[in-house]
C-alpha cells in the first residue's frame, strides 16, 4: 500500500524522530508531514529501536537529553544497525562551538539547537535526506 499525505502525494521518505517531549514530537511530525515525509515519532529508546528494526528510516532525528537514555548513546546504538542513515541531533542544550566541532560532529551528521527555526531545520533535513 502506498502511503499518501493529505494532498495525495506519495511519501516515500521515512523519518524517525526521537524526543521525550510530546509537544516537540507532535510539532515535528506535523511539520514534516506537511513537507511530504512519512514520520514515525517516538518518545523512548525502546520504541526507537523497534522502528529501526521493523521499518528502517532514511533519517533519524534525536534529542540529546532524554528521560530514559542519553541521546548520543542511543544514536551510537542505532547507527550500529543503520550505519549509512544520517542522524540529526536536535537539542535544547547550547554547546560551545569547539565542543560541537570536536565531539558531537564526529557522532552525528548534523547538530541543531531547538531554538533554530523550523524552516532552517527542514532545510537541513532536506539536505541530509537528499531532496
Amino acid at each position, binding site marked *: 500500500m502506498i502511503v499518501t499525505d493529505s494532498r495525495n502525494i506519495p511519501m516515500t521518505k521515512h523519518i524517525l524522530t526521537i524526543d521525550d517531549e510530546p509537544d516537540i514530537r507532535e510539532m515535528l511530525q506535523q*511539520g514534516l508531514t506537511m513537507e511530504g515525509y512519512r514520520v514515525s515519532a517516538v518518545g523512548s529508546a525502546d520504541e526507537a529501536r523497534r522502528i529501526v528494526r521493523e521499518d528502517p528510516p532514511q533519517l533519524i532525528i534525536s534529542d540529546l537529553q532524554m528521560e530514559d537514555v542519553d541521546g548520543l548513546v542511543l544514536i551510537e546504538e542505532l547507527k550500529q544497525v543503520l550505519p549509512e542513515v544520517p542522524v540529526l541531533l536536535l537539542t535544547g542544550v547550547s554547546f560551545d562551538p569547539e565542543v560541537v566541532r570536536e565531539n558531537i560532529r564526529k557522532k552525528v551528521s548534523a547538530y541543531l*539547537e*531547538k531554538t533554530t527555526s523550523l524552516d532552517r531545520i527542514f532545510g537541513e533535513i532536506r539536505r541530509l535526506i537528499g531532496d
Partner: protein
Amino acid sequence: MKDNIEKRVAGVFLLVLTILVVVAFAAVRNIRRSIASSDWVNHTHAIIIESDAVLSSLHAGEAALRSYLLTGDKRDQGAYRVAFTEMIEHLEVAKALTRQEAAQQQKVLQLEALLVKRVDFTRSVVKSREQDGLEGARQALAADSDGENFAAIKRAVRNLKDEENALLQQRDKDSYLQAQTTHWTVLSGVALNFLLMAFAAWLLRDDLSARRKAATALEEANAQLERKVKERTAELAQANQLLQKENLERRWSNQALEHQLRYSQLIINSISDLVLVVSKALNVSRINPTVVHQTGMPAHEIIGSPLNRVLRLADDDYAGSAVKPEPIATALKEGREIQDWPATLLNKSGQRAAVRFSVIPLRDQDKVVGGVITVRLCPDPAPHPV
C-alpha cells in the same frame, strides 16, 4: 429581447392565420358567386332554348296546318295540334323561367299574346276549311295580310333571345371576373403567407442564433468561473498551508523560548550560592531559591526591596571589614565588575553572617541596566581590599 422575438413571431403567425381566414372566406364567397353565375348562365340558356323551341314548334305547327288545309288529312291535323301543344308547353316553361325577371317576363307575356292571336287565327282558318272547303281556307289564309302576326312572333322571340344573350354575356363576364378575383385572392394570400412565414423563420433564425451565442457565452463564463474557483481554491489551500506552517513555526519558536527559559532557570536554581539581580538603584528584582533559604525571608519580601535589606556593606553597620554601598552603584555605573568583596548577610531574625560577594554588570546590548550579585557564605570575613 427574448420576449420581443416571441411577440413578433406570435404576431406574424396571428397575421398569417388572419390572412388564411380572409382568403378562405373570400374564396368560398367567390365560389358561391361562381356557382350562382353558372346557374344564371344555365338559366339563360334554358330560356333561349325554350324560345327557340316555341318558334320551332310554331313553324312545325304552321307546316302541318297548311298540309292539313290542302289535304284535309286527319294525320296532318293531329300533327299541327301536337306542334301547337308543344309550343304552348315551351311557352309555359319560358314563363316559369322568367318569373323572377320582370323585364323578361313582360317580353314572354307579349310573345304569349302574339301566339294566342296566332292560335285564334289558326282556329278560324281550320274552321273555314271545315265549313267552306279548300276555297274557304284559301280566303282565310289570304286574310292573314302576308303573315304579319307570324313575323311579329319571330321578332318577339328574337328580341327575347337578344335580351337573354346580352344577359348571358354580362353573366359570363361577371363569372370570369369572379373566377379571376378568386384566383388572385388565393394566390395573393398564399404568397403573402409565404412571405410572412419566411419573415417568421428569419426572426426565429435570428433568435436561435442569439440564443446559441448566449449559450456559448454562458458556457465560457461558467468555464472561466470554474477556473477562477479552482485558482482561488488552490490559492486558499496554499495560503492555508502557509498559515499552518507559520503557526507551527510560531509554536516551535515559543516552545524553544520556554525551553530555554526553563533550562536557564533550572541552572540558576541549582546554584548553591545566593544570586540576586539588582537594578542600577540597587533594588532587588530577582533572586534564586538559595537566597530564600539562607535569609529565611519569603521572596516577595526581598524582591522590590533595597539590597541592604539582606546584604550590608561596611558603612551600614559592619565596621571593619565591610564596604560602602557606593562602590556597587559606582561599579554598575561604570560597567565594572567587583570580585570577591566582603559583606554581611542578614536573615529574617536579624542574625548576621559574613559573606563574600561579586558584582557583574547586567547589560542589555551596550547599556548597563543592573547587576547580578553572587554571594558566597564564608566563615572568616576577609578585610576589605583597599
